[in-house]
């Protein structure tokens, strides 16, 4: 039986902007104030905080306590989650753990980054030693290697990728918080004509790095009811896999950690993949959506493109997908980008998605992806199943 003892009672997102000129702390302040207002609770309720790491204040070894000081929070539990784009969903699970362990009762789960304004990230290790000298074009390069191998094994249909690009763009047009630069209609032909970055990755396969922040409030269901909260979302299943197949020298690069994390999350939730009513997968690249569909069991390995062509992923289609535009069409707020799809799922579960509200909002699956190891599939994989309550 799934546990419904934990509840997310409010969520908020700052409008995503390119080179906003704002700081992480300013963006976080707006996100927290929005989440408190959405939950209808006082700041004094918060006694725990989990924050995703960020590029714009990377190098600050005291990030979470300094952020909590800026926000005026006195805390009994405080942590930074450095799983990259898996940090937001990972923070929800860590908040639930801390609450169940009795360390705190109400957690601010927050993600903020102003990467397009200030980037203090400096990732070295094997990248500085063996990767940068090769001139690989960062994430588009890593996903280029992955995509060509996928194409070799299974065939990669650009029309399937185009369909995802267009569907997500349609959703961004309906989301007033999506980055304005991206809120323009997109056609299949425009996707296919977009310039090649690192073959076969086109410009419109990739996220655009921007600035933004999101927050949600996690507490116990009992407390939520005592506070008079009318609608909530229960995290009923979670799975995480960091560095899938790391000890294998030559793994299949198309295999994703969501295969393991998804099975665990669904088992906890007492659900099968066919029970999922809306899907909010982490989308730094379009092919990542297809690989996750395969790894999670929406379809078999190699059948992702066919599956995409056979389904309608619009908010009113047969499997609503990234109804806020996803990061690819709403903008990626740096390492806070993983919170965008989570916050959209929460809006849907709360019935607050305005002009794009899905009809059956009884549950949602959210995933996270973070960092790319050397010549492999992505390194951090999370799967979170949420149920409306």
């Amino acid at each position, binding site marked *: 039986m799934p546990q419904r003892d934990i509840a997310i009672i409010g969520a908020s997102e700052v409008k995503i902007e390119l080179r906003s000129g704002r700081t992480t702390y300013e963006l976080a302040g707006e996100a927290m104030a929005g989440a408190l207002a959405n939950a209808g609770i006082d700041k004094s309720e918060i006694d725990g905080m989990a924050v995703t790491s960020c590029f714009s204040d990377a190098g600050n070894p005291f990030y979470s306590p300094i952020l909590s000081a800026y926000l005026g929070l006195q805390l009994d539990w405080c942590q930074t989650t450095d799983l990259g784009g898996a940090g937001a969903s990972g923070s929800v699970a860590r908040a639930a753990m801390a609450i169940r362990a009795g360390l705190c009762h109400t957690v601010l789960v927050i993600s903020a980054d102003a990467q397009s304004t200030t980037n203090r990230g400096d990732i070295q290790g094997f990248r500085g030693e063996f*990767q*940068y000298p090769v001139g690989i074009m*960062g994430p588009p*390069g890593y996903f280029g290697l992955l995509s*060509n191998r996928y194409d070799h094994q299974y065939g990669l249909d650009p029309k399937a990728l185009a369909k995802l690009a267009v569907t997500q763009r349609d959703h961004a047009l309906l989301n007033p918080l999506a980055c304005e630069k991206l809120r323009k209609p997109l056609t299949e032909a425009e996707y296919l004509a977009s310039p090649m970055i*690192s073959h076969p990755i086109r410009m419109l396969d990739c996220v655009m790095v921007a600035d933004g922040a999101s927050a949600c409030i996690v507490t116990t269901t009992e407390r939520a009811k005592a506070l008079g909260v009318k609608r909530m979302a229960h995290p009923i299943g979670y799975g995480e896999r960091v560095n899938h197949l790391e*000890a294998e*020298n030559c793994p299949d690069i198309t295999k994703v950690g969501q295969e393991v994390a998804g099975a665990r999350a669904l088992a906890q939730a007492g659900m099968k993949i066919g029970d999922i009513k809306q899907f909010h997968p982490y989308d730094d690249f379009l092919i990542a959506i297809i690989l996750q569909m395969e790894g999670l069991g929406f379809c078999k390995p190699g059948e992702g493109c066919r599956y995409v062509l056979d389904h309608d992923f619009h908010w009113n289609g047969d499997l609503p997908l990234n109804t806020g535009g996803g990061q690819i069409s709403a903008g990626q707020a740096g390492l806070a980008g993983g919170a965008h799809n989570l916050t959209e799922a929460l809006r849907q579960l709360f019935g607050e998605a305005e002009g794009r509200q899905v009809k059956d909002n009884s549950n949602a699956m959210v995933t996270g992806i973070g960092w790319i190891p050397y010549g492999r599939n992505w390194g951090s994989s999370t799967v979170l199943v949420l149920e409306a309550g």
Partner: protein
Amino acid sequence: MSERDPLEGLRPAPVKQDFSQPFWDGAAQGKFLLQYCPESGKYQFYPRPVSVQTGKRNLEWREVSGRGTVYSHTVTYRSPIPVKGIKPYIVALVELEEGVRVMANLIGCPVEAVKIGMAVKLAWVKAGEDNFPAFEPA
């Protein structure tokens, strides 16, 4: 920059880890050394402080053939700083005969000729002042 190697003279120097030094010392002599785990009988690359199989620190360094095949590849059209603006070049994931993968430039090969499965052999290039592994068609 040369016809054979568009990145010639442009590769940044590797920022080395202390436990990798034998690799760089070998490279300086034109030897491709990999860490070898005697308990599992497996090689590993990139260098690590421990065996990724056992977690132990009993790794050996062994010279390997430098022969392999292309597992995957990507042609870079928009290149990053410090190689920005140069003509397209190939980044390949090469699977060595010894069962590890190396990310490296494929040189002496037109960008339209790279294929998964093609046989390649080691070809040293420079990254800063260091010998750095690249591959060329075998």
